[in-house]
């Protein structure tokens, strides 16, 4: 069976662009939100800088509730919220909201885990030097965890590419949508193969860059 590439190529490029938009918007928004959630989880943990057992407990429960929900179900479950915020539940913009919410929670956990691994002795040294708690958090704890944080973010970037494929279900467009519409549903194995290849290349590039940057930081 011949694939009609002259027709499909522009659609493929359009899909790549949609995926890039969704992934970029999500990683930026959830990257910031996740950093805040993670730092708050770390700092409010009993025995840590801002020790707030109640805050920690609440955040922890929220993260634990949201994280295990399969993303495909999560998208539909928060449909009403998406409608309220974005004005529609269909399209790329509508996909970015659930992606960002889910990714923020997961990144929050990733950030927390990397910060917890920072030697408490270093935190004590900063406090002993007269530094305030916020200063210790931002100018000592975060930079100490930078290399593993970058690897964590790289991991999340790839997980977000994965999420974006499911956004196709709600008409979010992107490569996932492309593979299903023109590959699976048309019984065109070539299209699926090409799409998978494009995704693999994108993921590889992201992983290579992440590894390289974190190595740069680790090597100092």
């Amino acid at each position: 069976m011949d694939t009609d590439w002259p027709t499909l190529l522009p659609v493929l490029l359009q899909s790549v662009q949609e995926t890039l938009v969704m992934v970029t918007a999500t990683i930026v928004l959830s990257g910031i939100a996740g950093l805040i959630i993670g730092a708050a989880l770390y700092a409010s943990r009993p025995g840590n800088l801002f020790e707030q057992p109640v805050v920690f407990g609440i955040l922890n429960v929220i993260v634990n509730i949201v994280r295990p929900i399969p993303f495909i179900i999560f998208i539909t479950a928060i449909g009403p919220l998406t409608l309220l915020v974005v004005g529609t539940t269909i399209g790329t913009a509508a996909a970015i909201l659930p992606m960002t919410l889910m990714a923020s929670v997961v990144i929050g956990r990733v950030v927390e885990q990397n910060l917890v691994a920072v030697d408490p002795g270093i935190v004590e040294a900063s406090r002993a030097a007269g530094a305030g708690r916020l200063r210790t958090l931002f100018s000592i704890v975060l930079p100490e965890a930078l290399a593993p944080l970058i690897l964590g973010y790289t991991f999340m970037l790839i997980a977000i590419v994965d999420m974006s494929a499911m956004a196709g279900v709600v008409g979010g467009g992107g490569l996932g949508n492309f593979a299903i519409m023109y590959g699976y549903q048309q019984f065109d194995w070539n299209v699926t193969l090409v799409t998978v290849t494009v995704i693999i290349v994108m993921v590889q590039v992201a992983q290579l860059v992440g590894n390289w940057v974190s190595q740069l930081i680790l090597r100092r």
Partner: protein
Amino acid sequence: MSDIDPHIRFISIFKEYPSPRGKESSVKALDGVSLDIARGSVVGIVGYSGAGKSTLVRLINGLELPTSGSVVIDGTDITGLPETKLQKVRSRIGMIFQHFNLFGSRTVAGNVGYPLKIAGWSRENIKARVTELLRFVDLEDKADVYPRRLSGGQKQRVGIARALATSPEILLADEATSALDPETTTEVLGLLRRVNQEFGTTTVVITHEMAVVRELCDNVVMMEKGRIIEAGSTYSLFSNPVTDTTRKFIATAIQGTPSAATLERLRARHPGTIVAIEINEEYGSSEVNRMLAAAQVTGTVVFGGVTEIGERPLGTLTYELTGPPEAITAAIEQIAAHTRTEVLSSQQPQKEVSHGH
């Protein structure tokens, strides 16, 4: 260790931690500690792990707060101070750590300059002061290196430079040499002594190594189970320990009387009377020799050693004494009148060599 103007003063401190499971009994880290630390002195806090040393020292810079009691520094009670005031107090107190706790994300210069940055110094002033500090610890060429490239001794010198950045009047050292090899330990102790001598920094040293106390401290505080069990000048504590714990610690730093096993071996080799005689600044081995000679007793050193504590000699020498039994008894009595003397083994009767013909 009372003095008119104590630099650091602990007044009946109790510190309890909630027990790990949050049930009934809490853990008592400090159980009624009162202590004055004189300005410009070097004090060693000694004890087994869990004795409360770390907690006691962290009260000084408010990293720990007492459950009750107060900590007075320079006449100011710091126990009730709000966090921002405590930060000011901390920035005037340097601290060094067993595992150095350098910031891996900052260069050596970045580490040393950090306390100054917090104190609001300008960039040029920080740069000048960091250069000065790195010269003091002899690491000028390492300014732009990251800590992981340094050896243990170099790391601790960076730690010391960082602790001294704001010219603190108090320096806290938490097991500062425990992770270092003997040679590096000597180097770091020398540096700490120099700090005390050149800047008059009141230095509080936590350690479990009596060798560190011997080399560095003017005074010693022995702790056990959250209490001070013994305190005094290093020399008096070494020469006159009261508690068993202190005695055990001291035995690790000065070669005292032989152990039971050693004594058995000594007896096998030396049939004479074996006596352990304490040597101190008032009563040295020449005095021992003179008295033995006067009593016409032959004395041979078979075990022991003399070391310097606070630049004063101290040790125990174990002698084998041979001669007429009455002369030996008289000599021992005479020596015992001047210094601590312990007869470990009496002269063994000459074995008759009978061949059973």
